[in-house]
């Protein structure tokens, strides 16, 4: 039986939470297609608890491939392992997260395996008549959704936008098979070597944040950004910005949201003085809940917002901050 596989990711031997989002996707497909859900994971000394967790959250089989060379993501060793598993298990479908790892490994493997790959999907389904995977993704900066399938080539491969689905919950009493495999010997042939890592210390990761506060040109000066930062801190939100703010050098590029910056899908997006240029909307319009504060009632941002205040942000923010400080909390 050809099954549905996810690529689970690990960091220092611990399974990353994004893997559980993939299990949610995989479970839905497994149920619809009557196939089994399996997980593959590559690393070195992967903790047993993590592998059990994958079982508890939906995988029937977990294959862990291990070698010192797999401790960190490197394109050649990882692709050797995935290709080896494709050879051994002939997966029908492989899902990976659209992370820096997934978005690099999946195309590299798809090319070699002559498989079809769809990037950054936000919806998946099984076509009833054919059993094929239907992959839906935003394109052209989110202006258009495209549904894509892969009729003949196998496996059918997709990367899935992180945070586009909840993590699969743990279900007590689930059982499954854990297989630990030694990596193929070719993993020692890597033309890229890992020399070290500098963690992001400065601020919260924009793409992982459940809430983001985003400043646009309406903030007027670099000094005023502190106002937005204060709001972000009070809400436990990450701070983002539109391109205009980045181009003026008021915040650094990792803060940029939009077509040429990051795509965020938080639970809550608050736009402050953001006009909503289409390039910016492309990076945020799939947020769950959007609030905008802008003095121009015609601002584009209001077209994609759930709640809007038409007013001067320099009047609104101090009151909002004051109320939050006084503990008129919303969570």
């Amino acid at each position, binding site marked *: 039986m050809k099954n549905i596989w996810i690529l689970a990711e690990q960091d220092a031997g611990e399974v990353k939470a994004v893997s559980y989002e993939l299990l949610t996707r995989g479970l839905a497909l497994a149920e619809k297609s009557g196939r089994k859900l399996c997980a593959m994971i590559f690393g070195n000394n992967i903790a047993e608890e993590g592998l059990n967790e994958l079982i508890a959250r939906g995988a029937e089989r977990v294959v862990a491939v291990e070698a010192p060379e797999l401790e960190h993501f490197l394109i050649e060793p990882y692709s050797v392992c995935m290709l080896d598993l494709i050879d051994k298990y002939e997966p029908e479908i492989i899902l990976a997260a659209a992370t820096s790892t997934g978005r690099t490994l999946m195309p590299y493997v*798809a090319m070699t395996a002559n498989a079809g790959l769809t990037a950054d999907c936000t919806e998946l389904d099984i076509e009833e008549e054919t059993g094929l995977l239907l992959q839906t993704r935003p394109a052209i900066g989110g202006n258009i959704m495209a549904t894509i399938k892969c009729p003949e080539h196998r496996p059918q491969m997709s990367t899935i936008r992180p945070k586009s689905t909840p993590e699969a919950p743990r279900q007590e009493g689930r059982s499954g098979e854990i297989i630990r495999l030694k990596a193929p010997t070719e993993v020692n042939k890597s033309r890229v070597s890992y020399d070290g890592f500098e963690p*992001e210390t400065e601020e919260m990761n924009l793409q992982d944040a459940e809430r983001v506060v985003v400043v646009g040109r309406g903030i007027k000066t670099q000094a005023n950004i502190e106002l937005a930062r204060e709001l972000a801190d009070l809400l436990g939100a990450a701070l983002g910005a539109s391109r205009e703010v980045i181009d003026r050098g008021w915040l650094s590029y990792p803060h940029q949201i939009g077509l040429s910056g990051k795509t965020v899908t938080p639970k809550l997006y608050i736009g402050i003085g953001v006009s909503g240029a289409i390039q910016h909307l492309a990076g945020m319009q799939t947020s769950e*809940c959007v609030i905008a504060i802008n003095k121009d009632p015609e601002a584009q941002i209001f077209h994609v917002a*759930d709640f809007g205040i038409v007013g001067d942000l320099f009047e609104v923010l101090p009151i909002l901050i004051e109320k939050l400080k006084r503990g008129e909390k919303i969570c």
Partner: protein
Amino acid sequence: MRIAVCVKQVPETKSVKMDPETRTVIRQGVQAIINPLDLYAIEAALVLKELYNAQITAISMGPPQAVTALKEAVAMGVDEAVLVSDRAFAGSDTWATSYILAGAIKQLGDFDLILCGERATDGDTGQVGPEMAAALDLPVISYVNHINELQDGKLKVSRLVESGTEKLSMQLPGVLTVVKEIGEPRLPTFRGKLKAKEIEFPSFDLETLKLDKSLIGLKGSPTRVVKIFRPEVVRNCELIKAETEAQTVEAVDAMLAFMEDKSA
């Protein structure tokens, strides 16, 4: 040192239209620009040219109009350009595109480094860089935000990942996809513009590249677009005016109540 930079001509995002019959992007009559994220790959190449006296070739696959994108690259300081164009290439997905581009790169021979932008702003896939690397059997490092130095045939770079920055070295030849932090793209120079006006560059078609016909175009593409649609706008914005102080206080209260209601 020889560097290839892959660039794509994309439609200006604001003027995108789709053909509902073929379900592909209509490129005719739409203003085309060089993919903004490819400018960073060109910039990275130009920096290496200054440091290591590199020779840069820009490569673009697309319709004949894509020469404009190549001329723009030349105006910025790229030495040579090659257009990869054939009607038979139309309809290629990222797999087939990467196969064709890899064919063009092989034809040109012996590059030390191939640079790509992070992704194109039309397809938004970011797949062609890594796929092309695989097709060429070269290593790839994606999301590169800094190129540190070249030492004994090894290029030391930093790579932006979710939780920070990785330090990596790559034995050349290899492929890098770069992000915006690599450096602000320079403007075209006067001399560059003159050169771009006069430059003639080769165009590679199916016959030049001797590609397998079954692996290009729609036929060679593993994926099929089955449906395109406009995303549903489900948002219904509750707009509140805050002109006076009293209104502002009310608006903020309403906003906090809204957040609580949505448990956002």
